[in-house]
C-alpha cells in the first residue's frame, strides 16, 4: 500500500529515509510523527531504525542499500556505523565506502538485482557495490541527468523515472533492469523521484502533496495493490493445497 507522509514541513520523504525489503532507516525528527508512520506499516515485518548519517538527517540521500547490504559514505561517524550495524539483521552487510561523491543515495539507484550508478563513480566503489549489494552494476544517465539515484526509483517489481525520459531511453532502461518502468512525477509535479518517494516490494511512502493520480501510478507500477508482506519477507513456501471432496 502506498502511504502519504511528511517529515516536519517537507514532502521529500526520500531525503529523510531509506527503505529496503529487509530494513528501514529513518532520520531523527523533532516530532515522532514521521517515524510512527513507518512503524505502523513496517514494524511487524522489518526493523525500522532511527539514525543520523554524518550528523545530518539526510539519511535517504547519503546511504544506499538493498536486502543484501547497506553502503554508507565515508563521512559517517563510527558511532553511527556501530549503531546501524547493531540494529540491522546479521545478513545485511554494512560497509563504509571511501568515495569522493559521498551522497550515495543521489548517485546510486538499486534494487535486489541491478544497480544504476553515476557515470563518474570510482571503479573501486563499483566493485564494492557489486560485492556488498550482490548486484549487476550499470553506468547510466536518466533523461540526461547523471544523478541516477535522484531521478529514478525502482524496486524488484517496477520503477518510476524522470518525466522527461524519452521512450527509447525508457525501453533501454527497462531491458537493463528487467522491470517495467514508467515516466512519472511525485509530490504534485516534482521530477525528483528519488527524493519524493521510498518503496520496497510491498509498500511505498510518498509526500503529502502527492496527488491521487500520482499515487495510483505508484501503486500500479510497484504492484502494491496485491502485495503480501509476509510472503515476500520470508522465503516463499510453495504450498500445495488439495481439496478432497
Amino acid at each position: 500500500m502506498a502511504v502519504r507522509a511528511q517529515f516536519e514541513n517537507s514532502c521529500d520523504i526520500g531525503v529523510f529515509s531509506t527503505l529496503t525489503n529487509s530494513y528501514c532507516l529513518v532520520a531523527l525528527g523533532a516530532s515522532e510523527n514521521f517515524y510512527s508512520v513507518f512503524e505502523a506499516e513496517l514494524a511487524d515485518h522489518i526493523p525500522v531504525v532511527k539514525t543520523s548519517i554524518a550528523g545530518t538527517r539526510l539519511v535517504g540521500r547519503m546511504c544506499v542499500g538493498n536486502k543484501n547490504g547497506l553502503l554508507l559514505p565515508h563521512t559517517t561517524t563510527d558511532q553511527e556505523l556501530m549503531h546501524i550495524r547493531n540494529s540491522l539483521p546479521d545478513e545485511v552487510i554494512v560497509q563504509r565506502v571511501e568515495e569522493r561523491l559521498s551522497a550515495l543515495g543521489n548517485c546510486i539507484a538499486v534494487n535486489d538485482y541491478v544497480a544504476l550508478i553515476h557515470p563518474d563513480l570510482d571503479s573501486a566503489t563499483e566493485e564494492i557495490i557489486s560485492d556488498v549489494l550482490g548486484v549487476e552494476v550499470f553506468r547510466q544517465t536518466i533523461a540526461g541527468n547523471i544523478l541516477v539515484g535522484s531521478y529514478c526509483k525502482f524496486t524488484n517489481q517496477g520503477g518510476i523515472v524522470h518525466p522527461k525520459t524519452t521512450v527509447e531511453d525508457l525501453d533501454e532502461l527497462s531491458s537493463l533492469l528487467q522491470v517495467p518502468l514508467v515516466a512519472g512525477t511525485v509530490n504534485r509535479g516534482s521530477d525528483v523521484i528519488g527524493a519524493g518517494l521510498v518503496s520496497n516490494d510491498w509498500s511505498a511512502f510518498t509526500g503529502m502533496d502527492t496527488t491521487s493520480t500520482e499515487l495510483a501510478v505508484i501503486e500500479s507500477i510497484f504492484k502494491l495493490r496485491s502485495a503480501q508482506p509476509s510472503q515476500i519477507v520470508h522465503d516463499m513456501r510453495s504450498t500445495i493445497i488439495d481439496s478432497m471432496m
Partner: protein
Amino acid sequence: MKERERDENENEENEEEESASEVFDSDDFDSDSDDDDEEEEEKGEEDEEEGEVQTSFEFFDPTEGDFLGMKGLLNGYLDGEVYDCSGLVDHVIKQKTVGSVVRLEEQLDPIAVVSVINLQKHQDTQFLGDIVTFLRKKAPTDKEKEMLAKDVFERKGKEKIGLVVSERVVNCPMELSSPLNQAIFDEIEWATEDEPTQERRDEFKMDNFLLLSRVYFSEEDKVAKGKGKKKGKRQKTEAAAGDIVYVRPEDEYFHKECDWSFTFPANRAENTPGLVQHRMVMWIKKEGVKRARKELDKLFGDFLPT
C-alpha cells in the same frame, strides 16, 4: 596579512532591466605565494569586464505549475513551524485574480509571490488556523495579545481584514518591491469592481491589512530589549530607522504608517554578525497603505497612476 576588498557598482536603470554583479570580499587573505594573489586579481578583473547581466522580471497570475516553487518560498512563512503550506499555496493558486508571481525569463520557478487572503471568509481553513495560532503564540506580551484579539480575531464588525502574504528570494532586487505592491493592491481594487459575483467583490473590499515580515535589529537593540519588553518597544519606536534593518524596502514605509506592530525573535540563527533576525507583524489601514506606497514610489520611480 593583506586585506583586499573589491566592490562593484550595481547600476539600477529601470524596472525591466537588472544588472547583477558580484561583490568580491576577500577579507582574510593569507596567501603564502605571490602566484595566488595574481590569480585572484585576474579573476576579479575578468569579472569586472563581464559584470553586468541583463534580466527581465515578468509578472504572472499564479498557476498550478508554480506550486512547487511557491511551496519553497512559503515554507518558512511561519518561521520554520509546521503548518498547512500546501493549503496556503493551493489557495493562492485558486485565487487567480488577486495575487501575482514573478518569474525570471526562461525559468520555471517563481522568485517572488504576493497575494492577499480575506481572514474572515477563509477562517475555517487549516492554514489560516495554523497562522492565527502561530501569531497568538508569538505575541510577546499581553498588550500585543490584546491588540491581536481586538483587531484581528474577535472583530465582528463589517470591516474586512486581509492577510498580505508576500515572500521573495533572498537576493531579490529592491526595484521589484514597488511593482509587486502595485500588483497586489491594485488587483484588490480592481477585484472589488470586476469580479463576477457580489460575494467575490465583497471578499476583496478589505479595509485593514495584516502583514508578517522579516526585520533585523542591531545587537545593541537586543540588549535593551532584554531588560524589559515594554522598554524595548518604546526604544524601538523612538529609535531612528537605522536601528531596524528592513529586509523588504516597502516594510519601512508600511511600518511608519501602520496602526500598531510588534516583533518577536526568529528561530533561525542569524547569518549576519551583529544583526538579530526578528519577525514583525503589522496592522495597517487601507489609507496607510496608500501613503506608504506613495513614499515607496518616490524612491523607486513612478509606478502609481497619477
